[in-house]
């Protein structure tokens, strides 16, 4: 019953359809590990306290803030980052296409998080109308204030055939 506390922990997880094993200090966040160890710099570090959403990734298909998640909490989990959205030939995910078509960004810093959140928002069934998208996308801040275009892109992607059978599970 006495627990073994460790200062280095081995974690096996799956990232963008690839199995990986890593050894981390327990304090390592999923965001820091993705950016600094896994070479996946798509998820951005904005506020590092869960306020901005630009670190949003999918964990077992559910959107979460990478900065509020420890790698040790991801053992056996499947992570999808923005790098995992496009198809094997580089063809864009329908949500990515919708963002490009609707000009749903200016500086682009929030875009990886917006995309991941949008993919989940659509899969959850929360992209039925403007008000629902605004409510369920409120965890992703856009300081350029491209919200009307982002909302339009999410709604368009939700209506496009095949939008909800991507990487989200």
């Amino acid at each position: 019953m006495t627990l073994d506390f460790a200062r280095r922990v081995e974690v096996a997880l799956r990232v963008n359809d690839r199995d990986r094993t890593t050894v981390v200090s327990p304090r390592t966040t999923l965001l820091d590990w993705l950016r600094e160890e896994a070479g996946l710099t798509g998820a951005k570090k904005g506020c590092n306290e869960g306020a901005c959403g630009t670190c949003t990734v999918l964990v077992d298909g559910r959107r979460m803030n990478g900065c509020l998640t420890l790698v040790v909490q991801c053992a056996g989990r499947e992570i999808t980052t923005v790098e995992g959205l496009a198809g094997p030939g580089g063809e864009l995910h329908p949500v990515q296409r919708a963002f490009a078509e609707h000009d749903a960004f200016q500086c682009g810093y929030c875009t990886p998080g917006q995309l991941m959140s949008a993919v989940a928002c659509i899969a959850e069934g929360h992209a039925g109308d403007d008000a629902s998208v605004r409510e369920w996308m409120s965890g992703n801040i856009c300081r350029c204030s491209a919200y009307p275009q982002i909302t339009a892109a999410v709604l368009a992607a939700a209506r496009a055939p095949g939008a909800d059978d991507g990487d989200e599970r």
Partner: protein
Amino acid sequence: MRDFAYARAGSAASAVAALDGPRTSVIAGGTELLNWFRLGIAAADRVVDIGGLDDLRGITSDGDELRIGALATLNEIGEHPLVTRTAGALASACLQAASAQIRNRATIGGNVLQRTRCPYFRAEEPLPWPCSKRAPGSGCASLAGRHERQAIFGWTADCVAVQPSDPAVALAALDAQAEVLGPGGPRTIPMREFHLTQQEAADLGDPARETRLGPAELITGYRIPARADEGQAYVKVRERASYEYAIVSAAAAVRSTGNRSTGNRSTGNRIAAGRVALGSVAQRPWRLDAAEAGLPGTPLTREALIPVIERALAAAAPLPQNGFKVIMARNAAVRALLLAGGAQ
């Protein structure tokens, strides 16, 4: 963030045994704990992870009582049909909290243990100002400075902060019980008594204390009486329409004399019984007991409800900058009762 040693609990009992040790924290979702570590609000040498304990998961009902495991996330609770059907105020409170991403991680066990959003408290160490929560006995920079978002009940000169949890307000209004496991075994704590105002903590001789949970105790779940014959509502007043803490909030449950199933929402409807709790007005959810006693027989109209609520708010002690919260709390309570009673 300073590093720590980490272990996964094999059972709730093993987590409690570990918590009984020195400088040990428990992690479930981690959305609060990691920010505490970053700011220096908490420091731990050891962190025990309860996230893998399946017996702390799940939302079930036996018809009379709803049981929600401590590891249920806010999104799971907010969209679960058992909760939306028999504890609608809690479902609504969960979905009005935080963001979709945070609600996928944040658990209902940890949510009620979140600490105040007071900006003087949530600053990175070393603090350039006094804060009795960070340095006991140092005083309250907010009382001397900005405090328009702070308490109107139960505060002391030591601290004027409010408890910000949305679900805690609904749990208090719904007469929920927290199931707790500690070194001495399991026990329950009524959610309307779970949190302590600064004054209550001082009266207990421990001004720093914020809840009745013991240092080595773990919340394992909640039991909520299921009352199918009443309507419920959670009203959250905030500066942004989404992803913002409440200035004030109100959870209400109402059994009315009108027949809601026929769609009869005439002004003839009266309250048969009602319960209402305010949020973000004190360091605990604030049940309006005096108002509840006066609710039976009261017509479900704004004009009839205002004086009943105002009588219960007569004991408020607003600070120089937050007198508006008394009026805002009154209006939130009235609106929650009207919504719960189906009159709006």
